[in-house]
């Protein structure tokens, strides 16, 4: 198993090369002086044209493209992501400040939607054709069809503005320090971000469960005389779990991308908002680095899903 995990992680490396190359290629295409990505804008402004040219030479910006790419990659690996053109703050600092918020938000959303989605999906499959199942089906459809930000706006209107149960947005208030005080800020954005995934997981878990329950081994399990809950959960759900995990992995990019929109709606100070602002300001270096960060998050997540699948399903060949 350890070998398999190692193999999967090593397998990510070529992909990382391709993606960083692509991103550097796009960065190179963008208008603007590459020097501006590399240093503090204020210092840059004081330089004369000759000094600038000298800098280009020292930074190797006049080198061929491939050489520049590898130099850039080397910088990345050392943790030097360059500067944000608009604020002059190092990109690494911006990310360090905003990443925890995003991880907190998407992590919570992921947890809620996976748990809730599987439970509702399995319940729907077991009670197939009942009123409850039909209601869930329609809700699932609404969940995948409603624009997330619109759902967020409705939630803000109902729960924050009219009922005043929860705050309108933001991550926390300087005056609040308690865990539950902070949780209040998390509930709305996390549920809104998770709604589409919850609905997706639910629909998929239901289909997958129905599919499993038609299998021969479910009949075998019944023929053993074990209680129905064991047939459903220990035999049916356990097998349906694998495709559900695969689906969650498959939908993770959507969840991460959703954070860009949801963070904007709820003024959540995360990477998504940084990204959004950078795109608006044509702050290319920041855009590319944050995009790279998102891709790496997705890659890691899908590797984890691969490993989880191997743990869950003994039929997955570990050595292929």
């Amino acid at each position, binding site marked *: 198993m350890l070998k398999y995990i190692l193999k999967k992680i090593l397998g990510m490396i070529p992909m990382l090369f391709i993606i960083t190359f692509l991103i550097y290629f796009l960065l190179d295409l963008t208008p603007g002086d590459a020097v501006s990505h590399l240093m503090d804008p204020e210092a840059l402004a004081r330089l004369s044209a000759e000094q600038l040219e000298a800098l280009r030479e020292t930074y190797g910006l006049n080198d061929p493209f491939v050489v520049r790419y590898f130099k850039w990659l080397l910088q990345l690996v050392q943790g030097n992501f360059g500067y944000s053109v608009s604020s002059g703050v190092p990109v690494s600092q911006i990310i360090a400040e905003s990443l925890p918020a995003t991880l907190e938000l998407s992590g919570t959303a992921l947890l809620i939607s996976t748990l809730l989605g599987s439970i509702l999906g399995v319940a729907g499959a077991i009670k197939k054709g009942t009123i409850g199942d039909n209601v869930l089906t329609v809700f699932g459809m609404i969940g995948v069809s409603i624009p997330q930000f619109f759902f967020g706006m409705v939630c803000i209107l109902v729960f924050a503005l009219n009922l005043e149960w929860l705050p309108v947005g933001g991550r926390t208030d300087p005056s609040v320090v308690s865990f539950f005080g902070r949780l209040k800020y998390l509930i709305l954005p996390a549920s809104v971000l998770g709604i589409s995934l919850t609905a997706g997981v639910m629909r998929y878990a239901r289909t997958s469960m129905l599919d499993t329950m038609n299998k021969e081994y479910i009949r075998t399990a019944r023929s053993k005389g074990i209680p129905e809950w064991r047939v459903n959960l220990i035999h049916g759900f356990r*097998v349906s779990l694998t495709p559900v995990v695969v689906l969650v992995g498959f939908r993770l990019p959507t969840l991460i991308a959703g954070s860009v929109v949801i963070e904007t709606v709820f003024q959540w100070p995360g990477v998504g908002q940084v990204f959004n602002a950078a795109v608006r300001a044509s702050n290319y270096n920041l855009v590319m680095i944050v995009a790279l960060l998102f891709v790496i998050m997705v890659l890691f997540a899908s590797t984890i899903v691969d490993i989880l699948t191997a743990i869950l*399903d003994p039929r997955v060949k570990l050595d292929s």
Partner: protein
Amino acid sequence: MQDQTVISVKNLKTYFYTNQRCNKAINGISMDIKRGKTLCIVGESGCGKSVTASSIMQLLPKLSRIEEGEIIYHSEDRGDIKIHELERNGKEMRSLRGQDIAMIFQDPMTALNPVYTVGWQIVEMIRAHENVSKKEAKARALKLLKDMGIPYPEKRIDEYPHQFSGGMRQRAMIAMAMSCNPKVLIADEPTTALDVTIQAQIFELMDKLKKEYDTAIMLITHDMGVVCELADDVAVMYMGNIIESGSAREVLKSPGHPYTKALLKSIPILGKGANQDINPIKGSTPDPFNRPTGCQFAPRCDYACDKCNEAMPEENQVGGTHMVRCIRFQEVMADGK
């Protein structure tokens, strides 16, 4: 007592209701399953063999139900139990399944849960019915696997079904079915998915179990050859009816129904060479939604006459336990082989 009946089925009717239609899958059948005997149910696919088994186990799909008739299990300590009145997955039915009546399915490739080890699945069965520790149960599972002739059982017990070959899987299935010493073993085409050489081994194993544990076996098959080898009693089914039944000797020696006769003629005999006269049955089984009005076999029958189209023939007792549902059975029997 020699011929002790364990399960008796009387005038059973089971209908299916899929796709907004009503399919009379079983249309009034009666049979007795006896202790220490093998009852073979023969017929083409779609004739209702498997539905009979599912009805006895109450493992029918959702959109189907037992309409009429009774299935009675004569238990030793609890008296007669009316299976047809029990709730499908209710407590009583569950206590019968596995403990008193166990089942082996057609395809061992799909009948074992792929995500649990073989040992786990046997242990689950034992612990569902008996109050034993995990360790004890596992020891018993190990012994069962060994008894079923699985090599290296100590290693095999912790392996997953996909690591087993087809024949080994079916042995594991039988081990699981036998784990609580059931009184009745229902085997639904247990060898259809296996190689011929493996088939013989599996049947040998089942025959051994029957003799050792005095288990009643209901064997469902479409292979007349298997019937000749194993059966004590035979019931031939066609389109949801038993058209001929009786002891194996009676039915095989002097078949009274043209269908049985045709089935017997359609098996090639080994060693007789390529020139032997094999007579396939002409035509195909009718559409269950568009049945013939009288005898279901009439359109394909060589002996058919006008009277056959009027009504399904009654049951005729032709001596001993032999029963035939054909109005011209005397001519059929007189025709010889």
